[in-house]
């Protein structure tokens, strides 16, 4: 009997230790950053369209030759060769390859009784590829290691009434696209984020996290639109991730229209999204704006969204999610971004909001390299402030 108690105590200690470790690791993973796009480069680098640098019509992911050249010659502090493998190998025109590798250090204080969590961890390892096919069609995909630090079978060895569908391998994006030219209409089919919002790289920002664009929450879509220098339009029908079951179970439609203004020094966008899932309807509408002021080497950024969610049994509520701030470019290769954010979960009720302030300093010292530091304060109403510091090194092939 004593042996049994000892076993149970030992099991309890192991569980407590495991849970503490898990929480630390979850904190790390939950605060990580994964490549998405650098919304700050639009206008400030002389480009008006995201797909001047990226193959994807709304930006993000694999770079075109123009983007690689810009990284090699204009966006890095010291010039070099931004092309694949630093120019060591010339790829045929029908093939584009790349990779994203990130490592990070994080210190995160959520007023936890166990103190500040510290960790060094691999954040991302993704391989990217694009193959041009006949009839202006292409196929683009990424494959990589999922950003987690534990094996599910070790985590929950004895109870598994809910089957785990995840694996270590992930493919954030895989899609076919018809696009005769970078400027003009396109149709895209596959897994990716529906174009919406500022599309910042940091998935922890409320305008991504709380609007359904968090890490690995890409949906399966049929998207059509057109991209021109003066404007762009993206209309996307989306279905939930039926393969990995990450993110919402909603299906629906999203649209983003963005028009360049002030002689291509800024843009204003209107956006909307409607999703319908089991027992829930979610409708959101928002505005997005950017204004670049070359004389100040600064760009203003803002996004505001109203979200109405209707639950079939208990009624509806309205949410506000927004971010506003600026990105400054003091010298070549250096980007300072300051953002204020608000997520008011039910605007009819006081005390249901999170506010946050984030300072991001990105340095692109040499082509293919990025060093970034982020300081972030979050203020959940009625709770203590949460503090996060993240330092990361990023290399892309």
């Amino acid at each position, binding site marked *: 009997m004593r042996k049994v108690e000892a076993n149970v105590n030992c099991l309890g200690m192991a569980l407590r230790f495991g849970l*503490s470790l898990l929480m630390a690791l979850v904190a790390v993973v939950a605060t990580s950053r994964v490549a998405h796009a650098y919304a700050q480069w639009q206008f400030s680098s002389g480009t008006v369209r995201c797909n001047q640098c990226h193959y994807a019509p709304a930006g993000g992911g694999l770079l075109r030759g123009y983007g690689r050249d810009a990284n090699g010659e204009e966006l890095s502090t010291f010039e070099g060769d931004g092309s694949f493998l630093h120019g060591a190998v010339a790829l045929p025109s029908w093939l584009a390859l790349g990779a994203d590798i990130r490592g990070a250090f994080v210190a995160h204080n959520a007023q936890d009784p166990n103190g500040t969590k510290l960790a060094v961890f691999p954040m991302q390892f993704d391989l990217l590829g694009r193959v041009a096919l006949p009839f202006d069609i292409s196929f683009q995909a990424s494959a990589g290691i999922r950003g987690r630090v534990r094996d599910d079978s070790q985590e929950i060895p004895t109870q598994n009434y809910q089957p785990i569908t995840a694996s270590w391998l992930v493919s954030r994006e895989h899609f076919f696209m018809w696009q005769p030219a970078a400027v003009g209409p396109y149709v895209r089919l596959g897994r990716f984020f529906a174009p919406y919002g500022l599309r910042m790289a940091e998935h922890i920002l409320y305008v991504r996290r709380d609007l359904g664009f*968090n890490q690995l929450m890409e949906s399966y879509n049929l998207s059509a639109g057109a991209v021109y220098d003066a404007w762009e339009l993206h209309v996307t029908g989306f279905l939930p991730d039926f393969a990995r079951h990450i993110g919402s179970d909603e299906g629906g439609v999203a649209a983003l229209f963005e028009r360049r203004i002030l002689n291509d020094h800024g843009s204003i966008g209107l956006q909307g999204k409607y999703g319908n899932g089991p027992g829930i309807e979610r409708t959101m509408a928002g505005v997005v704006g950017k204004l670049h002021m070359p004389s100040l080497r600064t760009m203003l950024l803002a996004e505001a969204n109203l979200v109405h969610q209707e639950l079939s049994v208990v009624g509806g509520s309205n949410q506000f999610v927004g971010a506003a701030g600026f990105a400054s470019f003091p010298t070549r290769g250096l980007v300072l971004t300051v953002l204020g954010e608000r997520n008011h979960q039910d605007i009819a009720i006081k005390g249901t909001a999170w506010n946050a302030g984030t300072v991001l300093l990105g340095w692109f010292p040499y082509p293919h390299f990025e060093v970034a530091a982020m300081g972030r304060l979050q203020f959940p109403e009625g709770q203590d402030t949460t503090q996060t510091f993240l330092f990361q090194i990023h290399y892309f092939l």
Partner: protein
Amino acid sequence: MRRLKNIISSVSAPAVLAAVVMVSACGREDDTRPPEWDYISAAVFQPNCATASCHSRATAAAGLDFSDADRGYTSLTGLWIWIVDPNAMGPGCRPHNGTDICERGDRPLVTPYVPSQSRLVNSLRARGSSRMPPDRPLTEADIALVERWILNGAFREPALVRARRDGGAADAADGTADADAGVGPANDAQGGG
């Protein structure tokens, strides 16, 4: 004309943003949100807990899946574990690594009617336990809403549905169903506990 349009365009975005932020800053002091699992799951647990690396359906860290209301409710109330049992016999038991283990109900994360004894609340408040969610604590109002749900009995179905099923639709319609279905038994439980 074009210049005027540009000016209007550049001014309208900040104006809309400011107006929306001002609206968001308003709101009533008393929390009228329903302390029902369907609402709490959709408004609190799914956006804050069901992230890719944590309690999504794909990852279900610690066996907890908050990706929808049913899975979330099961995670909070229906977990089971294998424990060592020297007297193992019968269904649910099997040998494992030289000993015998049996399937038993785990202590649920919520104790109906008693928020203070619910592991869920202790995690949300970081009270003798690591904080959840670790990246961003819930607001005080959200935690209080979860506590009210537990205090009302932590039922899966909304009070209105329970009242209709139990023939108390009239009570539900005039707003007394919640009290009938939850608060009374909660007081009993606390008194007896």
